[in-house]
């Protein structure tokens, strides 16, 4: 068993993070989508082929995930085929052990499809399927909190993982490597919703960009930030645009002269009028911080859920009262939305107000919040915990999906952890 290479695949709704365990140089981050140009063109670009495009206007997306759960296996298979192909990872499934992530509270009928696909269609030698936040805890989490005196233990006993991804945000408390499932909470806001919301706002106020998902996503990643003083920034936004620090002028790509949009220097814009080409400019004002603000106040668009800091408090309050302090002082932020500038500081700031004053609030964020789970998975692979959960193809053919439900499930782990 130990001879087989272990493939770690964090199968996210936005990107697949795949590579061989203990070999970070093999890690690939591949967009989990197929795109077509539409309008009569039939060429499909799968996963990493997206990067080969030079014109990102009006792409038609096909995604395997719907609201965070895998529903389109046809698209997913072609993306996995591409990932396992010689061009990328050159995987030979029959001699490879797969460690794959799934969303929290995946549905049994969808899990059954995972098993069928992995064992029957691909015929992997063995497989282990876990939820993504579980793997985060296998990193050197203590190193994220530098203020602390060097800890003996790389992994604190209690960790609160805040995984804000493409489809939704999960708050997952983990006690000695086991998720407390009864205290896991989900906010239905993720990167996709933010991009779509920005798309609608921009299309209403400025240019019609409803078909330009790719471009709008780039605008979001370039311009948006999490405000530390939301009301103050709103006031600033009302001021004269010329000397307003918030207003940015984003030059949209036209895919002939520039294939990538960029933020234009405001001082230069006035004298460049003699340029024969006029740049198409999108002025970003309050859009820059009201979009990420949805993570903190979903009620801003009428969604009846609390934001991240309040939900952290809700989640912690559902665990055993002796552990509350430990959770508040070991919060780990992962997922693509953590890349917004100011995200960590804002969570720290809001949480300090909401959490009981006797607890210390410490928030840590890895250098790369997107691949952190994969690195955790890479450490996890081959550990005794991993070996206990592993199901081989032979066992699957003998016992069916049942054995996967038993081994991969975490429900028995929570006994006695909640109040």
């Amino acid at each position, binding site marked *: 068993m130990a001879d087989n290479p272990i493939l770690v695949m964090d199968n996210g709704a936005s990107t697949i993070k795949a590579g061989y365990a203990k070999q970070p140089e093999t890690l690939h981050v591949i967009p989990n989508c197929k795109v*077509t140009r*539409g309008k009569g063109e*039939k060429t499909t670009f799968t996963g990493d082929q997206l990067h080969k495009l030079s014109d990102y206007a009006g792409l*038609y*997306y*096909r*995604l395997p995930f*719907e*609201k965070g*759960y895998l*529903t389109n*296996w046809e698209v997913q*298979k072609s993306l996995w085929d591409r990932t396992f192909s010689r061009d990328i990872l050159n995987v030979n499934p029959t001699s490879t052990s797969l460690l794959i992530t799934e969303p*929290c*509270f995946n*549905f*049994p*009928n*969808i899990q*059954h*499809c995972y098993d*069928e696909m992995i064992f*029957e*269609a691909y015929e992997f030698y063995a497989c282990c399927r876990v939820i993504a936040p579980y793997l985060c805890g296998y990193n050197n989490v203590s190193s994220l909190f530098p203020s602390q005196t060097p800890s003996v233990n790389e992994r604190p006993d209690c960790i609160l993982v805040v995984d804000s991804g493409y489809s939704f945000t*999960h*708050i997952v408390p983990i006690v000695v490597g086991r998720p407390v499932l*009864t205290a*896991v909470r989900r906010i239905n806001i993720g990167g996709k*919703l933010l991009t*779509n919301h920005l798309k*609608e*706002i921009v299309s*209403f*106020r400025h240019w019609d960009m*409803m*078909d330009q*998902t790719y471009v709008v996503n780039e605008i979001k990643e370039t311009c948006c930030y999490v405000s530390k003083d939301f*009301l103050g920034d*709103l006031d600033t936004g009302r001021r004269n645009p010329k000397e307003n620090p918030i207003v940015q002028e984003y030059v949209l790509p036209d895919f002939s002269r520039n294939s990538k949009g960029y933020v234009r220097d405001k001082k230069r814009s006035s004298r460049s009028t003699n340029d024969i080409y006029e740049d198409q400019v999108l002025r970003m004002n309050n*859009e820059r911080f009201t979009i990420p603000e949805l993570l903190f*106040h*979903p*009620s*801003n*668009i*009428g*969604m009846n*859920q*609390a*934001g991240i800091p*309040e*939900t952290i408090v*809700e989640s912690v309050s559902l665990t055993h009262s002796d552990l509350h302090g430990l959770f508040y002082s070991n919060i780990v932020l992962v997922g693509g939305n953590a890349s917004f500038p100011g995200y960590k500081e804002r969570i720290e700031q809001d949480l300090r107000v909401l959490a009981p004053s006797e607890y210390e609030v410490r928030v840590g964020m890895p250098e790369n919040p997107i691949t952190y789970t994969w690195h955790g998975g890479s450490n996890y692979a081959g550990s005794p915990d991993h070996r206990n959960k592993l199901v081989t193809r032979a066992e699957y*053919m*003998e016992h*069916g*999906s*049942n054995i996967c*439900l038993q081994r991969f499930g975490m*429900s028995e782990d929570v006994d006695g952890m909640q109040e």
Partner: protein
Amino acid sequence: MSRKIDRRPGGIIDEDTRRQSLKRRLDGLERDNYQEVPELELLGTVIKPRRTSEVGDRDGAIANKKPRLRSKKEILRQLYIKKSLKTLIDESRVELASEDMPTYLTAAASPSKFPPKKFCSVCGFLSKYNCKQCGAKYCSLACKATHTDMRNTPVVEMEEYRDEAEEDDVEPELVAGLIGFGFV
């Protein structure tokens, strides 16, 4: 269906319709593409799924059985039957799980303890006023004018939406007219 919507300009949109248009707006934010193009959805399909009547056993109690020996083609054919998440949730019967078992449904975050802020549906800054017909917020006379200019279209569209929604559970196309009007 018996409920009447005042079509006249100046007619007030009732609470129910407002809620529905909000729900629709939120659903719209989960779209992969602005418009669905069915022919592109099928692009690259190698194996055409059989009619569902032939493969109806997919969601039965297979989990307890040994996997039958099937050809790979047959397995893929079954896996490729596209079901929406809503159907899958219904089929998984999570709502029947015992109360102390955490599931997708129990994990949703609770509502906030703080009152929602109000934003102008036109410019996005804080707003003080409500449109008395549809409840959309606006912050100034200029924004009100923009809002009034474009308001009549969505009333009709929303009515159509409701009729459709009542007839069957099919999710209708997002209508361009509604975007940004902030029926929140």
